[in-house]
């Protein structure tokens, strides 16, 4: 009996202790309504890093790009590259660029931002021991040096996509990073951007406040909280209960739910992300035959997929890229649904009744995969879905033996709005993703990769897309439209880069 009583006492004591501890763990931002310029944003996952030199997934990006300034920006309406930290830039020779860095820009600790900081930001990404995920994006750069307000970048070869990638380069404070070290900087990032880091609950939320000494126009929102809320249903509940004012990465079905609520609005933007099927043309069994690939491309009811399953939040495409990408082949017709033709192609190829394996991972919407399976089966092939977790999926489809099956479902975005970042890695002979090989295509994209003249590049890509359209190593299913839910008064215009600059937003 004494035992039970002491157990109970112990439990009460522990409960009291944890409650006290709980109060100690900073009860953040309890004002849930968006009063007084406070914005709360629900994202799907917590930023993998707050150091902008490391990860560049959408959720990390959305947070740290508000803390730092980027070298260049893309105008959200014209989609053109415009000055930001670099006020102007010139190309001295095919491989040398100089940038003039805006003067008077200060980091949050008051120290001035110079070209040396910009050069350092590039150098650390290129440093193999830093193991930046973005290393491959900047691999064309041979060196970056800064003196005063002048940044000089030399490339290994004439690189047409350099400026594109520099729009994603956030400039970090060299002296501060070197003083505190990379790990501490990642925990407590400090930049020159419109907002500065206040606090975080790892795995849950990051709080930023307006940086009043920022060089740009003073943002109207004074505080912003980014929260990681993985379940879509919970993000919507947060919008409905007023806990959050913006929720990102909604599904088309949940968008309809928001439309039914008069306090909320749906915001959208087409993205450069494409849902696609890629075929194994080397070791794929039936799909080694181009007619089988054509038949599969004709078996898919694109309009129904977009209209019914995606609720209209998607756009048809004619290739693996989107109209946002440089080199998009405007002359090609969209992929079209033609089951009768598909059946006769399969008949002619002698492939009717054969089984094809479709590889996918839980990272991709299982409904689309099953809808495609049903469409392909309707014209006479048997489709076996092989759903494995992302690590296994990559291991399989990137294996040099090409024995991963016949069809794979995936989504592609290079965050660069350039065909070089799409068709080169997907289909050039010997890249990790490619189970296709055509010397003519390789030659065209190799040339386009090192040509600076954009008109020449456009025509090279047009020819390359022509080859792909004939060989059909893959099918673009649709361009994905990003869906956001927001409180009625929020003024926010999502852009194709999904850049999420809070400084451009206003609360009602």
């Amino acid at each position, binding site marked *: 009996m004494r035992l039970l009583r002491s157990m109970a006492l112990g439990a009460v004591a522990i409960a009291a202790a944890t409650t006290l501890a709980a109060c100690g763990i900073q009860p953040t931002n309890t004002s849930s309504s968006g009063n007084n310029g406070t914005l709360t944003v629900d994202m799907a996952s917590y930023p993998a890093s707050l150091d902008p030199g490391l990860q560049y997934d959408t959720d990390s990006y959305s947070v740290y790009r508000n803390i730092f300034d980027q070298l260049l920006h893309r105008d959200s309406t014209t989609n053109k590259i415009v000055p930001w930290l670099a006020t102007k830039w010139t190309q001295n020779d095919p491989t040398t660029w100089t940038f003039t860095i805006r003067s008077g820009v200060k980091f949050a600790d008051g120290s001035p931002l110079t070209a040396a900081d910009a050069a350092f930001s590039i150098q650390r990404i290129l440093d193999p021991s830093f193991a930046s995920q973005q290393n491959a994006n900047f691999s064309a750069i041979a060196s970056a040096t800064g003196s005063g307000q002048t940044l000089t970048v030399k490339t290994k070869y004439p690189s047409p996509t350099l400026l594109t990638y520099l729009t994603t380069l956030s400039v970090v404070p060299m002296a501060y990073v070197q003083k505190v070290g990379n790990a501490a900087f990642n925990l407590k990032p400090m930049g020159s951007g419109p907002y500065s880091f206040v606090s975080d609950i790892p795995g849950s939320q990051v709080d930023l406040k307006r940086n009043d000494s920022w060089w740009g126009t003073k943002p109207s929102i004074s505080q912003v909280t980014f929260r990681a809320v993985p379940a879509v249903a919970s993000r919507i509940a947060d919008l409905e209960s007023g806990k959050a004012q913006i929720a990102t990465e909604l599904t088309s079905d949940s968008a309809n739910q928001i439309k039914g609520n008069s306090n909320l609005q749906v915001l959208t933007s087409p993205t450069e992300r494409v849902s696609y099927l890629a075929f194994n043309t080397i070791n794929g069994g039936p799909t080694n035959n181009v007619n089988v690939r054509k038949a599969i491309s004709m078996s898919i009811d694109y309009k129904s997929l977009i209209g*019914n399953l995606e609720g209209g939040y998607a756009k048809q495409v004619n290739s693996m890229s989107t109209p946002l990408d440089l080199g998009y082949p405007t002359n090609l017709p969209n992929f079209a649904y033609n089951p009768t033709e598909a059946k006769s192609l399969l008949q002619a190829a002698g492939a009717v009744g054969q089984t094809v394996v479709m590889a996918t991972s839980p990272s991709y919407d299982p*409904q689309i995969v099953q809808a495609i399976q049903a469409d392909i089966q309707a014209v006479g092939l048997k489709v076996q879905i*092989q759903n494995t977790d992302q690590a296994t999926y990559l291991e399989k489809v990137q294996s040099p033996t090409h024995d991963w099956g016949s069809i794979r479902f995936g989504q592609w975005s290079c965050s660069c709005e350039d065909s070089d970042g799409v068709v080169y890695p997907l289909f050039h002979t010997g890249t990790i993703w490619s189970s296709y090989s055509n010397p003519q295509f390789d030659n065209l994209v190799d040339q386009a990769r090192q040509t600076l003249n954009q008109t020449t590049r456009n025509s090279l890509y047009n020819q390359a897309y022509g080859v792909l359209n004939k060989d059909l190593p893959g099918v673009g299913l649709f361009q994905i439209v990003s869906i956001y839910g927001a409180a009625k008064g929020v003024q926010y215009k999502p852009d194709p880069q999904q850049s999420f600059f809070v400084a451009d937003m206003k609360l009602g």
Partner: protein
Amino acid sequence: MSAKRKADRRGLIPLIVVAVYVLVAIAAPLVAPHDPNGSDLAARLAGPFAERDGSRFLLGTDGLGRDVLSRIIFGARVSLTVAVATVLVSGVVGVALGVLAGWRRGWLGTVIMRIADIALSVPFFLLAILVVAVLGPSLVNVVICLALTRWPRYTRIAYAGVLETRERGFIRSTTALGANGWWIVLRHVLPEVLPLAVVVATLELGLMVVFEASLSFIGLGVQPPTPSWGSMLSDGQQYVATAWWLATFPGLALFGLVLAVNLLGDAVRDRLDPTRKVAASSKRRRRKEAVLDTVIGTEQPNA
């Protein structure tokens, strides 16, 4: 005697319900009104009693326009098979090891219990990933994976049961009288341990259905579009507020099963109850045990 008959009657209705579940699963193609995989995007997310092209979808359609009722009926096959197999394998292995550890003790008992300690601690998701990596995907491996995570629960329960039971007067007296050890385990210890294990097992059944779905998710379980209750539940997750019927009906099917199996478990428990057996058995042994109790010390600990 009459109590026993009453227990039998209480077990009858749940038994019938469980039998119906099994029969429906076996006869799924005959019972299901539609093709469980027949999708129609134009008819997606239709509510219960929806009618389309002259056919009626009693429990509505899912996100691909498939009939929810037919998928529940076909889903029973995978879900029942996996759940029953897992509970049997982990229960039998777990109880056997727990009894062994509690009875033999010594180094063998130590090894068993320490393995059980750490086996409990492997995160389920990690174990599942490792099982796919090492053994590959198949329905048998699903059972292996689930059983690997669940056996230590039974082991710890059985172990605790044996520890307590073996110190009871009648066991110690029987032992002292030099009875064969395994005979005691089978005759006296196991009946003391089993009722609790059965209670846990009947609860585990429902959990295993849900667990199976998380395995499909990483490619270890059944692959889409093959239906299972678990995968229907997790698919319905994002539709709880908009298309309630997606998760509700498979949930109800599962609830019905869990309820029936638990009530059935109660009936089984009553039959296994050692005191009932004692009551029903010859008075001679009762008297013998009573005598032993007084000799060696009463069965009841000093409260």
